């Protein structure tokens, strides 16, 4: 407004030196300016300091990787090769990462015969091995609940039983992702890192997930797991057949969940938990095929779904032999 107030000796415009502050007389005001500038720089440095640790954990490529749905086929191939190379470097083993698409016209369904299931837990073990779970905590996408007969209250279920099974007054209910038609976990995710695919499988983009665990809280079946630790898997136990959206080794700090072994089932194979079940309690198949095993069960057994009142519409069914 009034330029006459500006001291005449002050450098101005383009003619001044690069850092005008250096050229000023050493007054209290200059000292304050310097202190202010130093403080500002320090604060800025502190604010962006978390960025310094990024190069230690992930590569620039990984940091700049876009959402799964925005990746081109070439992008995907590049990412798969990078992940394969990283596994080779870290564990010294050859793995193959691929991304089977949903089979057109197929919608997966799963059913468990609770009269047959005896709670032996082989399904959990098979899941752990097939899906390259962290061995330190024996992670698995399945939990088998030991339930008192006559109750369907999951709160009464116990997962830590350690005695010969089955007990006469109990029944055993394996719970894993119910692959809901209306999945609360997908609505809860703030970054759209999880979504439902055309064959009904709810998947996670492990690289897009920010690890907020909202989906874990939203799931009424406790079907989602969080990678608290960097997974430890002995090199000779790593399953080298890895799906990008399924059983590849997940990074620490991401959510994961049962994906019906999509790296197997989208190739026409049966899920690992079904093959491992010694009681034959598990039935898997295509809900859109009227002749499929799963549809025979739906037509001939009195099936039910868990927590039907929530409106999640699971593609996972339970039944008892009558």
């Amino acid at each position: 407004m009034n330029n006459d107030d500006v001291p005449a000796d002050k450098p101005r415009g383009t003619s001044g030196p690069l850092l005008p502050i250096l050229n000023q007389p050493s007054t209290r005001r200059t000292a304050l300016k310097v202190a202010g500038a130093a403080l500002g720089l320090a604060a800025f440095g502190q604010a962006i300091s978390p960025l310094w640790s990024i190069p230690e954990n992930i590569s620039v490529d990984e940091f700049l990787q876009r959402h799964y749905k925005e990746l081109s086929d070439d992008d995907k191939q590049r990412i798969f090769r990078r992940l394969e190379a990283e596994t080779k470097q870290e564990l010294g083993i050859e793995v193959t990462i691929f991304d089977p698409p949903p089979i057109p016209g197929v919608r997966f369904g799963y059913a468990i015969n609770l009269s047959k299931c005896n709670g032996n837990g082989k399904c959990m073990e098979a899941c752990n091995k097939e899906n390259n779970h962290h061995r330190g905590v024996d992670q698995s996408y399945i939990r088998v609940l030991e339930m008192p007969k006559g109750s369907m209250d999951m709160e009464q279920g116990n997962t830590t039983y350690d005695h010969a099974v089955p007990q006469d007054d109990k029944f055993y209910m394996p719970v894993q992702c119910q692959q809901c038609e209306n999945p609360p976990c997908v609505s809860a995710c703030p970054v759209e890192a999880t979504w439902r695919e055309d064959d009904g499988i709810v998947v996670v983009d492990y690289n897009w997930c920010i690890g907020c665990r909202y989906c874990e809280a939203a799931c009424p079946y406790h079907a989602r797991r969080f990678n608290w630790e960097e997974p430890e898997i002995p090199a000779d136990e790593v399953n080298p057949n890895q799906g990008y959206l399924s059983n590849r080794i997940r990074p620490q700090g991401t959510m994961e969940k049962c994906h019906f072994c999509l790296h197997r089932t989208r190739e026409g194979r049966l899920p690992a938990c079904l093959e491992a079940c010694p009681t034959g309690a598990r039935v898997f198949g295509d809900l859109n095929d009227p002749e499929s095993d799963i549809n025979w069960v739906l037509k001939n057994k009195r099936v039910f779904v868990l927590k039907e009142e929530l409106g999640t519409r699971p593609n996972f069914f339970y039944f008892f032999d009558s």
Partner: protein
Amino acid sequence: MRVPGEIAMTRRRRRRRSVVVGLLVCATAAGWYAGSASRGAGQVDAQSSKQSTANTRDVQRTVENSPSSMRRFAVSIRKPEGPPRVITGLTDLHGNPVTAACSTCHSTRKPNSTNRTAQDLNEFHGNLKISHGAISCLSCHNGEDYDALKLADGRRLEFTEVMTLCAQCHGPQMKAYEHGAHGGMTGHWDLSRGPQVKNNCVDCHNPHAPQFPKMQPTFKPKDRFLEPPRTAH
């Protein structure tokens, strides 16, 4: 009307802001440079992997093009090897155990259709655990040829076809089995893509005591809310 001090402060603020903006611009430029550099490196990778991409697509196309109606893989059922052999407790000249066919002993003995339990047997098979309803030995075993089984109507049945025998009484289980709802299996759910192998009745059920045995769970995931966390977080 502003006083001169205010103007100086505004300038100072403006200058500080310009420093921050400058730093931000620098950071962004550095990030863009790093990104473009890595993208450049990535393009080389993409070119080298283009060949393999094309190959993968070709494979997928061949799979998709094969019509499912034309090609259907088989569902096979595991079969027992044949008539069981009894271990005699003797060894041959090479040190191998000597086994005997059922008919070795039974061809010289008269069949007894009243035998129901192991207690009825005073010579052999005394340790056999039998818990299978009220049926007798000869309900299933063939009194005329002990190397085979016998259907309810008296017809002879090879040991390898034992499931036909089981299905005589266990119809609902057999029906569920035929629809994949009883008995374990491995292989493919989609028979246009691969075969399936199903367990035999006697893979899981002991014919003399068919109730599925009790098991001891061996695998337990360690949930954080049940056990002390292993890490600080």
